[in-house]
Each structure stands twice: as structure tokens, then as C-alpha cells.
């Protein structure tokens, strides 16, 4: 084992840290799911992009630094440590971009990636459909061929599209072979949400913000230039992206340490020596540490040429539960002040703990419910027979 960072890596960390210290907004930006907050988060992305910090692992030509896996992790650790704004462009740069790099044409890469990296164009995912649940193969939205115009006409409905309310472009699967079922006959489209026939209906979530939206498509024309890969190859292509979504573990090993450390501070202020709350706060901190170590283990595996695969299901169940417990513990520490929402003069830390709790509650549900993740673990890792 070697749990040291190389001098070069440490230097990189220093560079990241000092830039962030100099540039991270002093006061948190408003929620990226409000109109103003969305705009301010776009501006922040532009600032990152101009300093080449927006997409560190990307090639130079698209604004990246070709950073290796470890450097990328260092960047992510520092980013969370600095309490920098959430990444409004994450669906694009983290989930979608890998697919574009792998399956997009050079023309598509040149057309999409720079604006994606600069935050000028925010991408929206169009995976779920009503009735389909977490089963991505259950696509009913269809695309019919339009030879004349050289493209496709899309009809249907996507739901739970995060950033959908204010985003610009949607990526998702549509059924191009009406006869097909399940994984077959699906094609990967990139839809300009400004196109005629697109209706976006914001869906406010528990915290009241329209974090995701329902997208209705009525005879929406999409040119061939906006088809990713070949017709009918959608499923194969999509796998990569969902892989990275569920592999959120690679988003940041330090992701939960910052709130865990704040929780310890909250305990010091308000715990009054209560041992049960002490253990709960310490457990949250240890889980954040364990998450970080698990991530380093995964990275080592990747550097050795291994795959993440179903491990990401293990990771997803763990972090989503930890995130809920961490914030639930904070609310217990706040007692009668825990219910105070933003806008309350007496709210502690601007109600960030309540916001965090409401946000965390989505974790066990999204990107495949934890029940589905456990089935996946049982079947794909433990090799148990398919659940009845």
C-alpha cells in the first residue's frame, strides 16, 4: 500500500486549493434550481472553465488538463473541501460527456463539448418515463423517421429530468423501431429543448425547488446530426452513462467529509456532552472517511485496469444511507430549531441542515432505488438467482 500523494500530485493539490481559496464565492449561491441561482451557477462554471478547472480530466482542446484519475480525485476533494458551488453542468460533464467522447462524431464533439464545459449549454437527462420506474429499458417515447427533412420526429414523455426546468439540451433514448421491445430498437438522441413541440413542466421536490422536470415531446424534429451513434444502438451506448451515474463514487471521495466535519462542530456547540449524539456524529464522520477510503480502493482497482461494474451499487446504497443519517443526526442536535426552514430569522446556519436532509432523502430513491441496487448486488456480485 502507498497512501502518500506524489510531490507532483501535492503540487497539483496546492494549485487547486489556492485558486479555489481565491475564487470560491464567500456566500453560498442561491439554489441552482431557482432562475437566478441557475444563472449564477452558469457564471461560476464559466469562471472555472476560463481557469481550466471546469473539466480537469478532459483533453486540452476542450478546455481540460488531461488530469489522471488521482489528480482528478484531488481536484474533487479540494473542490468539496472549499465548499465551492454545486456543479450545475454535472449531468453533462460527468454523465453525458464520457458517452460523447466514446460514441460521438468529431463534429458532434466539437459542437457540444466546449459549450458543455463552459456551462453555456446545460444538459438534461431524459432516462425515466412514467410507469417505467427505474427500469431504463422500458422506453415508450418513440421517434419516427422523416426522410425528407433528414431526421426524426419525436413523441413521448420523459420524467425526473434533473436540471430540466432551466436546462438547454436533453439526452436520452427513444424507440426508433416500433416493433421492438425492451433493450432493442432504441436510439440515442440529443434534443434541443428550445425546439418547437417541447413542453417542460417543472416538478418541485421536497425542498420546494423544481430540481427536476417532466418533458413532453409532441412531433419534435431532431436532425440526424443530433443522433448519437447509429439507429438502434441506443442501449449499448447508454450503458456507459448510467455506469458513471451509479458510479457516483468517483465524483468525490471527500464529498461527505465537509458536512461530517461541520456536524462535529455542531456537536461541539450543541451536543452538551450527550454520548448518544456524540456516537451518531462520530459515526457520520467515520462513514464519510470510509466512503473516501472505499473510493481510493476503487480508483486503485481502476488504475490496475479493473472495472467498477456492480460495485457502484454497493457504493450507492452506502452513501445514500449515510447522507440521510448524517443530516438526521444534525436535526436531532438542533432540537426544536431543526424544523426551521430558510427565511426563518432563528434558523441555524441558514437552515442548511434541513435543506441537506430533504435533499438527502432523494438519495435512496434516485439512480436506481436502493432495493434495486440490492437486487443487483445479490445477482451480479453474489451470483444469486434472479429475484422472483
Amino acid at each position, binding site marked *: 500500500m502507498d497512501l502518500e500523494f506524489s510531490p507532483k500530485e501535492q503540487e497539483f493539490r496546492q494549485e487547486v486549493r489556492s485558486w479555489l481559496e481565491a475564487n470560491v464565492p464567500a456566500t453560498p449561491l442561491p439554489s441552482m434550481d431557482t432562475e437566478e441561482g441557475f444563472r449564477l451557477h452558469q457564471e461560476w462554471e464559466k469562471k472555472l472553465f476560463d481557469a481550466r478547472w471546469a473539466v480537469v480530466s478532459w483533453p486540452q482542446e476542450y478546455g481540460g488538463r488531461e488530469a489522471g484519475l488521482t489528480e482528478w480525485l484531488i481536484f474533487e476533494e479540494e473542490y468539496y473541501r472549499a465548499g465551492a458551488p454545486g456543479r450545475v453542468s454535472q449531468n453533462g460533464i460527468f454523465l453525458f460527456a464520457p458517452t460523447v467522447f466514446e460514441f460521438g462524431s468529431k463534429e458532434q464533439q466539437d459542437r457540444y463539448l466546449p459549450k458543455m464545459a463552459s456551462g453555456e449549454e446545460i444538459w438534461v437527462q431524459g432516462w*425515466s418515463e412514467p*410507469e*417505467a*420506474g*427505474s*427500469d431504463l429499458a*422500458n422506453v415508450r417515447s418513440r421517434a419516427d423517421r422523416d426522410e425528407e427533412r433528414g431526421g426524426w420526429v419525436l413523441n413521448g414523455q420523459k*420524467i*425526473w429530468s434533473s436540471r430540466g426546468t432551466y436546462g438547454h439540451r436533453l439526452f436520452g433514448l427513444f424507440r426508433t423501431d416500433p416493433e421492438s421491445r425492451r433493450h432493442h430498437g432504441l436510439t440515442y438522441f440529443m434534443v434541443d429543448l428550445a425546439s418547437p413541440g417541447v413542453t417542460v413542466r417543472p*416538478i*418541485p*421536490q*421536497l425542498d*420546494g425547488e423544481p430540481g427536476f422536470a417532466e418533458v413532453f415531446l409532441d412531433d419534435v424534429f431532431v436532425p440526424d446530426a443530433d443522433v448519437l451513434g447509429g439507429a438502434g444502438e441506443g442501449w449499448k451506448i447508454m450503458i456507459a452513462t448510467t455506469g458513471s451515474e451509479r458510479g457516483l463514487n468517483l465524483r468525490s471521495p471527500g464529498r461527505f467529509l465537509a458536512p461530517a466535519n461541520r456536524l462535529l462542530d455542531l456537536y461541539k456547540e450543541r451536543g452538551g456532552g*450527550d454520548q*448518544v*449524539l456524540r456516537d451518531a456524529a462520530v459515526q457520520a464522520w467515520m462513514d464519510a472517511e470510509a466512503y473516501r477510503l472505499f473510493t481510493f480502493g476503487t480508483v486503485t482497482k481502476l488504475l490496475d485496469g479493473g472495472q467498477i461494474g456492480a460495485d457502484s451499487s454497493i457504493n450507492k446504497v452506502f452513501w445514500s444511507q449515510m447522507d440521510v443519517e448524517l443530516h438526521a443526526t444534525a*436535526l*436531532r442536535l*438542533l*432540537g*426544536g*430549531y*431543526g*424544523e*426551521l*426552514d*430558510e*427565511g*426563518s*430569522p*432563528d*434558523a441555524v446556519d441558514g437552515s442548511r441542515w*434541513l435543506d441537506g436532509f*430533504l435533499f438527502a*432523502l*432523494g438519495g*435512496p*430513491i*434516485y439512480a436506481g*432505488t*436502493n*432495493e434495486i441496487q*440490492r437486487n443487483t448486488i445479490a445477482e451480479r456480485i453474489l451470483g444469486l438467482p434472479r429475484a422472483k
Partner: protein
Amino acid sequence: MRLAFTEDQQLFRETVRDFLAASCTTEHLRAAWAADTAVSSRWAELAKIGVTGLVVPEEQDGLGLTDEELSAVLEQAGYAALPEPLLESAVAAGLLAEFAPDAGWLEKISAGEATASVLLPGQPFAIEAATADVLVVGLVNASGEAEVHVANPADYDLVAQRSVDRSRKLFRVGFAPEPESLVASGSAAAAALARAADRGALGASALLLGLAKRMLDMGVEYAKQRVQRGVLIGTHQSVQHHLANVLIKIEFARPVVMRAAYSLARDLPSAARDVSMAKIYAAEAADLAARNSLQVHGAIGYTEEHDLQLFMKRAWALGAAWGDSGHHRARVAADLLSEAPAPLTPGF
């Protein structure tokens, strides 16, 4: 030996249930969320069936009933997430009946013409303080003595807060005690305030029990109707077990809450311990009901449009109100580990 409500109590309970099913729908709740006050014309309606004056003595036009009937009714109020300050008024009424029976407030409360709110020692905020016609304040004065004050709006200023449950209109109260507002002090005041806090905790337990049942019912309904990938999700063992575990919590919390109501109604030696136990069990049932019902609902349950959130948020708020589980565990432990724990109810 009968651990069950009497026929009269059952009847009262059902009357309230039916009234709320019609007059306190989730549309009504959303209206209460949007308004400055959660008190509506429903308050006068509740008065007509005796609910607002439930614990008010008959001399003041109340029903003169006990914490048994109060908790039976509050369970229904919880099921409907009734936004009016029914519990707060009942706690205030108890103190008014003891120390200010002739001030005229009790008659108004019984008639549904007035609402009361209450602020006990250690309680950070008072609900509906801006609209309450009378605010009963309990405090410990500089010399460590308990005092009960009946404050008129003139006597205090308020700072409005915003609860995650928008129908809980919370206010920080800046109250300057005046000799005129003082109605009791010393040991009598201390005992009454302790009794009031127990009524509050018992009432919160009953509300939480009703909330838990409501969230369970919503989860069961959804599991029976929601088809995913061609199958009813209710056929999944994980869904079945999530909901079964909630029912188990509820079914064991119910007799615990009922026993606490019995003990408190009679001021038995075990009352304080029984009430604390009730709050712990009811809060745990409601907490699990919220988590598991949300998990069963999935993404749709995570939206503001879906009614589940109305009940989850109330449950979270009430779990911490009137003493959280940590506070009540300490109370139970203090009694059990003392030289002479209170005798069991029922006796043994």
C-alpha cells in the same frame, strides 16, 4: 382490565374522524400552508362537536373530558394533519382552568370563538402566537421560581419563523412578564407546568400515531395500485416488509400511548414515565412510516405535488416538539434507575 376505548370514546373519535375526512382534506391543508394562519372556519365547526372545549370544565361550557378522550381525538387530528392548534389550545386550557377559570377565555375556546397558544419553559417557539387570542406563558424567573402568566397580545412582541411544515405558524415570543399577567407561581405553578408539558407530550404522541397510520395507509394504497414493469409493486417482498415493519411499530405504539393517556388522566405515579415512553414509541413509528412510505412511493413521493410530504414534514416537526426522544429516554431512565421507580400501570 380493559385496554380499549369505551364505546362513548369510540363514538366521539369516529365523529371527529368523519368530520375531518370531509373538512380537512389535503386541499384544505395546502390552503393552510399558503395562508398566514392555519386557523380557519373549521375551528368553529370543531367547537360544535365539542372538540375545542374537550378538556374545558363543564362550568366553562366545555365537555370536561380527560387526556384519554383528548388523545383519542388527537390521533384523528394527526391522521388528517389538522393544522389548527388543537393541542396547544388544550394545553393552555388546562392551565387556564387551574389558574384563570373566570377570565372568560375558556368559554370562548369552548365556543370556538377563540384559540389559545402556549409557551412552556424550554419551548423555543409558540404556534399561532400572532392569531391566538390568548397566550399562556410558563417561565422560570430570576430566582428560579416557576411562574404562569396569561399574556395579552399587548404584552409581547413576536418574530415569525417558517417551519418545514408550513401549517405550523411558529413565532419567537419576546414576553415581558408583568405583575398583572401573573396568575400562579411557586410549587403550584411548577406542578401545573410539568403537568402541561406531559399533556403536550402525550398529545404529540397521539398526533404522531395518527400521522404514522396515515403515511402507512398511503404507502399501502400506492403499493396496491402502482404497476412497474408490468407487476404491482406490492408484490415485491421488499415493499411488503417495509410496510409490515411500519405496521408493527404502530401496533405496539398504540397501547403504549393509550396506557399513557390512562395514567395521565388519573395522575398516576407512573404518568410521567408512561408519557415519555409514549412519545418515544410514537415518534419512532412516525419516523419509520415516513421513511418507508417515501421509499415505497419512490420519486413521486419525493415531490411537493404529492400529498405524502404534508404528513412527513408534520411528523418530523412533531418528533422534535414537546421533548425529543433523547429528552424522554433520559426521563424514563432516571425513573427506572432510581431507588424507587414508579409502580407499573397496570399493576403487577
